[in-house]
């Protein structure tokens, strides 16, 4: 049984067919890339998988359970986390609190405990802070835990967003253009980070990316979308030599 199984999913917005007949199987531990020109429907696929949109047609299963119509928070609690193309941190909250929010649905104290601040509260908060700090340390953000998230430099904001997604303890991580706006050196570091978190957290990763070196460098399997349709699927080598892909997408890259 595959970890994630999406069959014949389509997303229509009135007349616009953003995604058509999208099928995807993710095995546990895989690192799969989703590429395609701007407007191909990649982020729409993410939004369907994470409950932001309910697909017009098709079904999605995660660990054998149907999640097609589940709410975003249920899907996240079930084990899918994501980052966003345009970073969506809680800007006016501290770095530490960004992580703590992601841990919130596991916190076991009631309103009365919070008001009276007695031992259950102290115990849980201590655990949450320790857990958060450990994550921040792994992402080299310790020492900045009291900074407001909006005041971090761009690269650190990206890292924090990944750390925050990991705080929800997902089995599947969806990364939406994590290398956007990064130079070659930074995206090289990012690649290593992605490889490393997959090992360390035992993750399956689905990645949207425009940076071809990143995609070709770390993905084991790539799916190519164009105008909402899947036009190719295969290993990086197969994709690189696929005619339709080169026409739709890579052709422009080779020329410049």
């Amino acid at each position, binding site marked *: 049984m595959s970890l994630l199984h999406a069959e014949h999913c389509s997303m229509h917005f009135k007349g616009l067919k953003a995604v058509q007949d999208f099928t995807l199987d993710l095995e546990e531990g895989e690192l799969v890339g989703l590429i395609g020109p701007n407007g191909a429907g990649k982020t729409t696929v993410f939004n369907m998988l994470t409950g932001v949109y309910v697909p017009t047609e098709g079904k999605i299963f995660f660990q054998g359970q149907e999640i097609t119509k589940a709410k975003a928070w249920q899907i*996240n609690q079930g084990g899918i986390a994501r980052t966003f193309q345009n970073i969506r941190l809680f800007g*006016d909250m501290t770095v530490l*609190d960004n992580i703590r929010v992601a841990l*919130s649905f596991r916190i076991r104290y009631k309103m009365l405990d*919070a008001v009276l601040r007695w031992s259950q509260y102290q115990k849980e908060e201590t655990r949450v802070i320790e857990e958060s*700090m450990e994550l921040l340390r792994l992402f080299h953000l310790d020492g900045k835990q009291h900074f407001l998230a909006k005041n971090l430099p761009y690269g650190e904001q990206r890292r924090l967003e990944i750390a925050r997604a990991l*705080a929800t303890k997902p089995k599947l991580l969806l990364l939406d253009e994590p290398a956007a706006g990064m130079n070659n050196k930074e995206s090289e570091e990012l690649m290593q*980070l992605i490889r490393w978190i997959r090992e360390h957290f035992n993750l399956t990763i689905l990645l949207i990316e425009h940076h071809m070196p990143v995609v070709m460098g770390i993905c084991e399997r790539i799916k190519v979308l164009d105008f909402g349709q899947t036009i190719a699927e295969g290993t990086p080598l197969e994709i690189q030599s696929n005619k339709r892909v080169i026409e739709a997408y890579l052709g422009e890259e080779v020329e410049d």
Partner: protein
Amino acid sequence: MSKSRSKRLGFWLVILALGVGMEALGQFEIIDGYVMQVIELIGINIILVASLNLINGFLGEFAIGHAGFMALGAYISAIGTVKFHLPFVVALLVGGLLTAGVAYLIGIPAFKTFGDYLAVITLGFNMIIVNLLNNIEYVGGPRGMVGLPKSTNFLWVFATTILTLVILRNLVYSNYGRVWIAIRENVIAAEMMGINVNRAKLKAFAIAGFFAGLAGALWGHMLQYINPSSFTYLKSTDMLVMLYLGGLGSLTGSVLGATLMTGLLEVLRDFGVWRMVISPLILLIIMLTRPLGLLGNREPRFVVPKEPKAAEEVSHNVPAAR
């Protein structure tokens, strides 16, 4: 003793001295009854504004019908004391709890929307509540209810105000508050972090309703007379003015805003009609020079509760990422 700890202790001593001192001044009639009532009104307004801050400031929604909840608390508690001869403290709590229940129920349809639409819906509920009260003969219709026992005194108001502020502060600086602020900061991200956004909003709304209900109950038993026209959108607007003056997302700001505005309106009483010109003008100037209000999103350190002694500094032996 560390500096921050002695500052905290000092803060609480000042609060205690303020309470005891005011009560003594009132008892020995050094402060006359009129001034005492203004002070009680300040306390009640603080409760109202701080609870409204939970929705408009921390949760980042825009509710403008808070007087409706105040009305419910006032009427429910008045029914309790006048018709059923309940002890004041029971009537007070029943007023708060039932108002919280109604707020929760109103929240269910209201939070299907947000922003301007939520504002209109909450305003609508404010009007519905006032119109209902106008047409229910049991509570006197437009004449209102008279003969409420004079149960509210300075100590009641003072204790309730402090308790409200402490409870709200502890909630805001707990997981509940973090979730509310996260919803304000980015609702889509919050939902993707496993947060049941709707439930979190309803909780905040019910809590705000509870405290607004308490404030209404105190208010009714202070004036001993309530009628529906005291709880129209004008009252809600007063609360909004105090809230935005003090600053969104700051409980200290709510205290400041409610105190300044209530005091100002009383001081300006001698100016007659000019009162209605001067006070909005002051608000206008403050909004233009300090758009976030006096203390928007800021809280003095010594009122922020201490984090648990978590091992923030303790270093763990974790392998580095790179």
